[in-house]
């Protein structure tokens, strides 16, 4: 699964640590998701989309 998390985060001028704090997870988690090493669960993906004020489809693509 691919994602646009790094781009969406950069558009908001957030660091990984900023996003991690908003998500209430570790910075390593954000990095692992961004680099595609880890696919988040559905609740975390929804939370991510909500924090980025977008939809899951805008963040993750099944390609």
């Amino acid at each position, binding site marked *: 699964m691919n994602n646009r998390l790094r781009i969406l985060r950069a558009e908001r001028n957030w660091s990984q640590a900023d996003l991690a704090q908003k998500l209430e997870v*570790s910075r390593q*988690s954000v990095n692992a998701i961004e680099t595609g090493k880890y696919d988040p669960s559905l609740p975390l993906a929804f939370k991510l989309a909500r924090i980025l004020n977008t939809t899951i489809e805008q963040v993750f693509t099944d390609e």
Partner: protein
Amino acid sequence: MFNKNLSRFQRRSLQLFSSSIIFTAFLTMMTRTWFKDHHPTGPIAWLLALIPTIPFIATIIIAMRYLARETDEFIRTQVLLALLQGSLITLVCTVIYSLLQNFIKTPDAPAMAYIDIFLVASMIALRVHLRSAQ
């Protein structure tokens, strides 16, 4: 682990986990010495043999408690992977050393050493996992 990004709960669990390793090693050595010096028999021997398992049981309870309360799913997955890899290394060591003991007459190793191998291997695996996610 050994990471300033750890939450207070993660740091506390890690401290307890590390303490258990040290305590397990200490009790193992003490029990072996006691067995060698005093040659206990009967229920006392059984009780003495049970003592070094206490910190190991505590370690597993700490790990279970940690996994049940950890809210960061990525970290939880890494800890589970590390524990499984620790189990794998322990089993490999057990099989190799058992064969060596049976066929090459290698000196006896303390059975409890496998617990230390499990704990140390798990911690190293966790460290490697978290480092790769930096």
